């Protein structure tokens, strides 16, 4: 397995974190969070990937054929479900922030605190 998928995962992690640090909009920030999450997908899937292997469904292929690791795919799916919940929750909170305070800018939310 080549090192490139791991570099991509690290790059996505860095990009996502940079985006969160500099974000001026909560929705943009949530999307940056999903970029960080994408790094976990890439890492998990590349861990279980085998060159030239088949999908881990044993219908129609010989039981001796090489398949990619189904466990990491299950982990990735679980991860997707878990994080969909987080994103939904975040967006719900952001919606409330926008409705009541008319802003989706983290800085302006905080400044209301100081004024």
């Amino acid at each position, binding site marked *: 397995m080549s090192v490139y998928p791991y570099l991509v995962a690290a790059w996505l992690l860095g990009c996502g974190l940079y985006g969160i640090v500099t974000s001026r909009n909560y929705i943009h*920030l949530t999307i940056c969070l999903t970029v960080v999450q994408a790094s976990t997908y890439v890492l998990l899937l590349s861990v279980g990937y085998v060159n030239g292997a088949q999908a881990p469904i044993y219908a129609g292929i010989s039981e001796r054929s090489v398949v990619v690791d189904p466990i990491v795919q299950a982990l990735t799916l679980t991860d997707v479900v878990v994080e969909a919940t987080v994103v939904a*929750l975040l967006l719900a909170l952001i919606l409330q922030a926008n409705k009541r305070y008319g802003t989706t800018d983290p800085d302006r939310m905080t400044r209301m605190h100081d004024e």
Partner: protein
Amino acid sequence: MSQLAPLSVAIPLLVAALLTCAGAFLPRLAVDLIATLTALACFAMTLTLIIHVGSGLEVYWFGGWHVTHGVAVGIDFAVGPIGAGLATFISLLMVLALISSTRGLDVKHPYYQVLMLTFLAGMVGFCLSGDLFNMFVLFELMSISAVALVGYKVHERAALEGGLNFAVINTIGGFLFLLGIGLVYSRTGALNLAQIGHYLAHSGNDRVVMVAFALIASGLLIKAAVVPFHFWLADAYAVALTPVCLLLAGAMSELGLYGLGRIYFSAFEPALSGHTGTLRAIFVGIGLLTSLWGGLMALTEDHLKRLLAFVTIAFIGVFLTGLGLLSPDGVAGTAVYVLADGFGKALLFACAGMIQHRLGRLSQSRLHGRARSLRLIGALFLAGGLLIAALPPFGPFLGKSMIEDAAVKVGYGFVPPLIALSSALCGAAVLRAYACVFLGWGEAPGRADQTDEDTEPETTDSHDRTPLVQLIPAIVLLAGAIGVGVWFGFADLAETAATRFTDVHGYLVTVLAASGHPIPPAASSSPAWYDWLYCGGATVAAVAFAAAGVWGRRYLPWGCRLTDAASRVLAPLRRTHSGQIGDYTAALTLGVGVFGGLLALTLL
């Protein structure tokens, strides 16, 4: 008997699902009753579990997927005394929290109760799980429930902001945890803690293992909120509903450390055991930094719940110090301290909730002297403050003296004075708040906190009297904090439990070979003379600091200059708590980098 372990997670989840469907047709009281009874059932089950487990380790394989040919193919719950004990404690706190929310708390049923039950299931499951990925899922389950509960009062700006910060920072923590899990899996092909430990015992430490451990530990330390990952905690705990605060401060933060201990003392210890010294120095260093930071920030805080949130951070630091000693004695002391102090902090939060109910405020400067007539609440608050300051011979004293002894035993003689100082700072902050709010002495620290401006009362009941359902849990919590210390033999039980917790070989053998691995009951040494000195000193120092804070400016000749200098020194620290999520994430990234760099030392 071991079926009780999965049931104590499944039943709250099932009841939560049923309540979601049917709860809207039931009156509030019925929903409260069902939720409380479920938590009570959970408490009974976990209590039975811990009595049954004793000092052993009970393994339950889901779906009957037992170990085959020495390889763990299934998913397990591995229930040891510490995990079961923590689960019991959490269930008890949940029962008290649900009881205290039955009268007057302004929440919409059944959603509040459903969230509380999923929160309970996540936390209990996290304590019992023996599988790395399941730990991640349960970790996320409890984080998501907690975020929803923190941001519950969506009409308040502070609650929204606290909830958002909490959600984003903890989700990043969750991702780091998951990245670590992926790397461990790539190295070992296993997710079961014992299986990972078995593999790493043979393959040893390398770069991938080290990075994986750094990521997993960072994720869990973010949840535990140690410096510099702690910023979200004060924002979140200050705005949560009081019953939720009992759980957050009493148990959730500690779960991050429990997870770190569980994973280290099963999966990673075999690979990293040669570097115990380096790891100990790193963990104790971070722990002490956190404990002092939390204590100092608590002293400058005006908002009562924020003050208690910083006290929570300070104690997380002490717990990390105890756990980070990586010895059975240190773990035993931490276990006792977590329990005793969890009761103490929950008690203080319950008192803050009662003050909020009666007076509608939480800012010390606005409450100045206004709580004079609330004598019983005042007495409870004062007792909580003294317990926090490690007044001998009660629970927190016992835990702290055990940690101190363990530190001295491994040659860390500088630890006891520093954690005594941290206790003194926290105690002083709480005692000064007591003097200000209940007696009207002195001035509040700093200017009135803005969070208080838009804090609305969370209760709808009559504000002329304190409902019994709020008072009784507080008294139970006080009894718990005192009882842990005066219950003869509890320290020995904790010592035995900690020996089991840190016995990696026993864990691997019990899970993978299904053979029992009995351990001899351990005896704890009684507190040494210097423990009495340090803890007594901490209590005296707490009273002295509080008195200096109350009267220093008026009566001490250099009081004004001293307090001005102190606030000038602390101002930059305070400013770091900007409430801005970008700053917090930057600190987090930096912290993970430094932490990973320090761990890289183990490769040298």
